[in-house]
């Protein structure tokens, strides 16, 4: 195409998509943080940021990022050097990889894998590695506690999430993200698979460490959880990764259950963003209403309730598909 020999063309295409995803994640983190502060403000009858970027404070997060850029990136003497230094990169890498298979439009998909869903699950599972490295690396008792909790919570919520995705895969008949979106042309899967949507959404709240399951930085208990010893840009990466995973899981939920980029008049990507940010808004709304669950109750809920429910859901889907 365009007179560029084949190997070079796909390299350029990959570089462009990679840059787009990384820039999208950076911009989205800024927008999500601003949105969170505005939504929490409105819920708590206050205004939220309005000093930087006068009327609605749109430049507030940009100012924060510059502040974090300038802040000193402290590494304590007694930390485990390389584990501490590499920890922030892993969650961020996990989320960028997750966006590889998310379709943006008609044939706007960075990587059209025919096992897209499996790839998504595989990639999000090593996000917990980064948080555990942070907890262990910073040689701080509170951080270690936070890391242990995060590991337990995230692993135990992988299973219901995977099973919910499996249910969607079964109804769509394929694991390819494009096929899933096309299968929802007439009816979005949320109507066909409401239970799977609920399970997936609750599990994604635990994945993204959102209240009522926010264990990484449970302020009132562990002071600041795994990323307590970080400061400056390194801490910003963790923050970026947290909001990235929130938007990431919402994007996948939108693709799987709300019909991804399909929508009446507006172009594909716009619909995709609207649906994603709708789910992000719901996550923020839940965060500023519900209290936090204790770690053992979380694990009980995950193993003893969500998992059996997910298995039952798959069974029912199987039977229904068999009968059709």
């Amino acid at each position, binding site marked *: 195409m365009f007179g560029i020999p084949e190997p070079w063309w796909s390299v350029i295409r990959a570089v462009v998509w990679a840059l787009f995803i990384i820039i999208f994640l950076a911009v989205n983190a800024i927008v999500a943080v601003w949105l969170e502060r505005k939504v929490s403000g409105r*819920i708590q009858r206050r*205004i939220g940021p309005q000093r930087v970027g006068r009327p609605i404070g749109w430049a507030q997060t940009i100012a924060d990022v510059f502040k974090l850029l300038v802040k000193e990136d402290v590494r304590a003497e007694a930390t485990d050097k390389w584990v501490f230094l590499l920890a922030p990169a892993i969650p961020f890498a996990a989320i960028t990889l997750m966006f590889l298979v998310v379709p943006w439009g008609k044939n706007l998909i960075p990587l059209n894998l025919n096992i897209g869903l499996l790839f998504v699950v595989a990639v999000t599972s090593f996000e917990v590695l980064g948080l555990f490295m942070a907890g262990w690396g910073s040689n701080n008792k509170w951080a270690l506690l936070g890391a242990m909790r995060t590991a337990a919570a995230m692993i135990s919520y992988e299973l219901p999430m995977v099973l919910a995705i499996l249910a969607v895969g079964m109804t769509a008949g394929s694991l390819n993200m494009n096929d899933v979106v096309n299968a929802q042309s007439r009816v979005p899967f949320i109507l066909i698979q409401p239970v799977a949507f609920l399970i997936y959404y609750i599990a994604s709240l635990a994945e993204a460490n959102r209240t009522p399951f926010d264990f990484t930085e449970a302020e009132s208990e562990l002071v600041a959880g795994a990323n307590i010893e970080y400061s400056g840009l390194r801490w910003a990466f963790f923050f970026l990764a947290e909001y990235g995973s929130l938007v990431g899981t919402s994007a996948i939920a939108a693709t799987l259950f709300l019909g991804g980029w399909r929508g009446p008049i507006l172009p594909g990507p716009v619909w995709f963003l609207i649906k994603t940010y709708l789910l992000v808004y719901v996550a923020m709304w839940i965060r500023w209403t519900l209290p936090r669950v204790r770690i053992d109750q979380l694990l009980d809920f995950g193993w003893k309730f969500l998992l059996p429910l997910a298995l039952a859901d798959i069974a029912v889907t199987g039977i229904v598909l068999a009968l059709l």
Partner: protein
Amino acid sequence: MKVADIGKAAVNIAKGLGVTFGEQLKKPITNFYPDTPATVKDGYRGVPVLVQLPTGEFTCTACMACVRACPIGIIQLDTVMVDRKRAMDEFRLEVGRCLQCNLCVESCNFDALVMAPEFELASYTREPLVLYKNDLAKLYAKYFWPKEGEEHHFPARVTSKHHAPGAGTGTPRGPRAAKIAQTGVTLTPGGGGGEPAGKTPVGASVPAESAREATGTTRPQDTGAQKAGEGA
């Protein structure tokens, strides 16, 4: 966990979400203090200031009652003999340590002290937190001096509710009353010019200069000119 429990739990969570959603639609209740002036209630206890006669003379008779009444002893008073009677020469008040407990105002038998609703007391150094007679006079002028056209009256609170219980008689009592009578000022109890509006927006009434400049610190040596007895 029976199914009924889960149903009830889901309904309760939904109701909780409903409450927060409802709150979102209401108007925020933030008041933008540094931009818009903060309104302070009429009887707000900020800084005890010296009451002044229309002639600028302080009604304080240097009887040291407030010095004894203060639990932490932050009021110092130097006296000087003026025609064989003790008169107040310099009044020093460490506002930084003041508890704002109003005991000094209540202990004063001559209603010479009153609480000004001043709350912008922050300063970069410890120095401006020590107020002298002239600083207090500026504060008094800022809050209690009658506006143009109004005839002189004492701050309403000297006569009304926030004074010593049952003691607010309206006009300064004791030897000062005779002296005041000579100046021909009619002192109607309860404030002739009517009580200052209940919710005086503190920042707005004072033109541009903020309270901090108004109480620029003047050490005793600065007020050399004043030494030769009061204005009258």
